[in-house]
């Protein structure tokens, strides 16, 4: 197998240039998709037979929650690659994941609470799904704090990577918590392989919003990665060309 393209992309100058080119191609389509999906979710799709208009929160809650899990998985895998292959760029990716990841987690928790109040009757319950998602937020915050407590960026990378890998075990627990325990939180709505439990007339805005969130995260990752590369490559020669 030919890994030349990978090594090329993994070199900081190429990655930097690639991220700068890629960012607008992710950000603007993502924002227009969000606009369309948000309009459709609020005004076009019919209300739910049980929850009436309150279910419209799902169109922001599910994408935020999915991304909180996805971003953590990317962060932990990047951290693992950085740890094994001593790849600086992988550590830079992991470091750029933590801020968007924690924002998505906060959004999932807050929109969930606002949805829970009128439907369940409580802002918060110590339900398995809710509790494990809260642990995910603490993992993100712990990762940030651990990183900030080291002056040496290499040591910060390695310590944070171990934490990210340890926390990875939480991800399948969050995902399957609604299957393993008979809890307050309902089961999954979207299914890639099977049939989704949301009516076809409502599913399109949800899928578009989910894709838009993924692309949005990509755009944010581009900027965050560039900031990380500049911080790590401060004495490199190639910077002169990129900066000017």
């Amino acid at each position: 197998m030919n890994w030349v393209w990978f090594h090329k992309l993994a070199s900081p100058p190429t990655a930097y240039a690639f991220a700068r080119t890629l960012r607008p191609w992710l950000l603007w389509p993502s924002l227009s998709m969000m606009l369309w999906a948000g309009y459709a979710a609020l005004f076009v799709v019919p209300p739910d037979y049980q929850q009436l208009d309150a279910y419209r929160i799902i169109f922001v809650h599910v994408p935020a929650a999915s991304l909180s899990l996805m971003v953590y998985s990317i962060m932990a895998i990047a951290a693992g690659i950085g740890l094994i292959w001593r790849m600086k760029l992988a550590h830079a990716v992991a470091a750029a994941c933590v801020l968007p990841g924690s924002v998505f987690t906060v959004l999932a928790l807050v929109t969930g609470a606002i949805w829970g109040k009128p439907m369940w009757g409580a802002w918060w319950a110590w339900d398995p799904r809710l509790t494990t998602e809260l642990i995910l937020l603490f993992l993100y915050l712990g990762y940030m704090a651990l990183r900030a407590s080291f002056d040496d960026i290499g040591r910060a990378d390695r310590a944070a990577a171990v934490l990210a890998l340890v926390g990875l075990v939480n991800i399948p627990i969050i995902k399957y918590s609604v299957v393993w325990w008979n809890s307050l939180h309902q089961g999954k709505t979207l299914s890639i392989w099977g049939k989704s439990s949301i009516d076809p007339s409502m599913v399109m805005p949800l899928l578009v919003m989910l894709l838009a969130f993924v692309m949005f995260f990509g755009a944010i990752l581009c900027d965050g990665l560039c900031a990380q590369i500049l911080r790590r490559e401060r004495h490199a020669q190639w910077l002169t060309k990129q900066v000017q």
Partner: protein
Amino acid sequence: MTPRQRRMIFVGLILLAVSAAAGFLLTALNSNVQYNIVPSDVSAGKAPKGRTFRLGGMVEQGSVKREPGNLQIQFVITDFAHEVTVRYTGVLPDLFREGQGVVVRGKLVYSTDLEKGQWLMLADEVLAKHDENYMPPNVAESLKKTHDVRRMQETSTSPAPVITP
């Protein structure tokens, strides 16, 4: 062994150790603490005595009784095998209705003057559950109709042998 292989084993060991620990913890949790206790557990004497706990089940059809003039309400929770009567004062969630899944938190007392069973739950919180099915009202209506029709056909032809193609 190259340093890279050593680091690979190190990462593998972290993942293995943590998932093993989580696995043990989860199986221990699963057998000891259930999130919801169901009415069958209560009648089997498995519910905690004199302590607040959560009881889950379905609100039985036709069992909701409201006290006129105040917010007191009484209803029966069933798991289709056993029943527990619940008494609660306060605002109910919007999804609370007969036939709906609920989780109530409160203390259990023994009572002999109940219509169903001997267990009375004095609840201080009532949460309504909903499922993951989202559909417009007209779809739900037609689904219900076809379901009812199918059920009627099934009951009317129930003794008929099942012919497999």
